[in-house]
């Protein structure tokens, strides 16, 4: 019984408890723990198993061996534990390819009823569970190999499909890149044309183009007077700044309406909100479309799908000067 790290050596007190060697008071304390404390109960079971295994493998000596035989083996239940250990260790030893544990010599058995298992019984054959396990393992291996072959073929097919798709996507990407280049070139040409037109235009008063003529708030019920603006003669465009209640869209569009006829007299292009607080939309309306009367802007937000939602209405009045 000189196995370093073995629970028998680690817990000599438990060994003494199992062999009935502790004083009554101490034994009662451990009795209580063996029922009440889970960890202790588990540990005690481990130590008992190791003690029995040590006996079965002939590792007990001296006083411990004597006490094991005179006390421990006195109980039928504990003798059955020893018998179980003999069979179990033999089976485990065969499964592990090592020799079966040495059974304690018959002479050592103290109790008249205890007869250690014959060493030859069952020792010459592999345990049935082991044979069954081997067959099961072989069958499992065959199934696994078949599955892996199928999986391999499937993966190869998948790989070639992916390569084909990759090639198609590659050529599609190339085509898109070409289109993008064409678009860039067209934009560049448009920009140049715009520059040319601007340069060709007669010099207009810059203030009338750039100045913010009117800041408009979203129309609400029961508000007071409609904001008004007087057009200066010769104005090219009139600038408006529409205050947003919420910048829910990345793109907007504005329609100028004649409220008397509900007819749209002018429509903006796509506009982006300014990152101010609150967010605003700047609109420049050609002065030529405006007459002295009431107007309203219908502001629409553009969804990613291209659809528009009207998000606000801004009324104003043009006055003659």
């Amino acid at each position, binding site marked *: 019984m000189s196995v370093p790290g*073995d629970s028998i050596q680690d817990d000599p007190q438990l060994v003494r408890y199992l062999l009935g060697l502790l004083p009554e008071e101490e034994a009662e304390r451990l*009795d209580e723990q063996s029922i*009440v404390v889970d960890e202790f109960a*588990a540990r005690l079971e481990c130590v008992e198993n190791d003690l029995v295994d040590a006996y079965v493998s002939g590792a007990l000596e001296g006083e411990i061996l004597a006490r094991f035989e005179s006390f421990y083996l006195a109980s039928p239940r504990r003798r059955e534990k020893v018998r179980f250990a003999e069979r179990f260790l033999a089976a485990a030893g065969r499964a592990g390819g090592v020799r079966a544990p040495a059974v304690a010599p018959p002479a050592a058995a103290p109790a008249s009823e205890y007869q250690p*298992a014959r060493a030859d019984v069952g020792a010459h054959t592999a345990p049935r569970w082991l044979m069954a396990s081997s067959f099961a393992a072989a069958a499992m291996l065959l199934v696994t190999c078949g599955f892996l072959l199928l999986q391999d073929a499937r993966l190869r097919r998948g790989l070639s499909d992916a390569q084909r798709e990759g090639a198609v996507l590659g050529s599609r990407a190339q085509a898109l890149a070409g289109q993008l280049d064409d678009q860039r070139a067209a934009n560049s040409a448009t920009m140049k044309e715009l520059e040319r037109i601007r340069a060709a235009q007669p010099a207009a008063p810059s203030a009338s183009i750039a100045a913010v003529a009117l800041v408009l708030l979203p129309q609400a019920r029961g508000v007071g007077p409609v904001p008004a603006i007087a057009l200066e003669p010769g104005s090219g465009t009139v600038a408006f700044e529409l205050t947003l209640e919420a910048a829910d869209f990345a793109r907007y569009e504005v329609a100028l309406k004649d409220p008397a006829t509900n007819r749209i007299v002018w429509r903006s292009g796509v506009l982006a909100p300014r990152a101010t607080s609150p967010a605003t939309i700047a609109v420049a309306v050609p002065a030529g479309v405006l007459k002295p009367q009431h107007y309203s802007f219908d502001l629409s937000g553009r969804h990613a799908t291209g659809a528009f939602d009207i998000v606000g209405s801004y009324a104003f009045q043009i006055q003659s000067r």
Partner: protein
Amino acid sequence: MDVLIQEIEREEPTLTQVAFTRLLEWLDDGTDSHGETYLEMRRRLVAYFDRRNRPTADALADETFNRIAKTLEKCGSIATTPPARYCYTIARFVLLEDLRRGRRSVQFDEVRGSKSIEWGRSDAVDEAASAHERRLDCLDRCLLTLKPDQRELVVDYYRDAQRQRIDRRRELAAKLGITMNALGIRACRIRGTLEACVDTCCKAR
């Protein structure tokens, strides 16, 4: 005769379904273990009585439960917590009573024991060999009922002798990423399950 005395002195062993269910609930102490707590507690009680060398450890464990069930029936609840502590208290009384009874019947036991040894010795040897075969068969069957990883663990844990065994256990613990102590407890549990299975199998055959 001693059996008769025990039958008379022992508490009424029958337990109604309602009382048994109540006992299970009390043992579970708020959780639902599906009877696992009862089985574990019974196993501990049997081991306790057996360590005290009582020949009828199973019956004493059942008697402990019967008394607790009756208390639950009469009082509605038991204040002592955890339930395991109360189990030990009752078990200790049951043990002391059984020890007193044992002293009264010891002579009869000794006489009966000596007679059974003299009676039919060759028949007994044949019976032992047959029982051994049955147990081996049961062990094979029960090993097959374990999950493969449990079977592998318990075989690896117990397969070697002496020093090799310690090294293997250390390797196993490292492989599973657990401490040696945790590995030991896990292997013990599986071995306990196996042992109980073999016991049930042998009794059934």
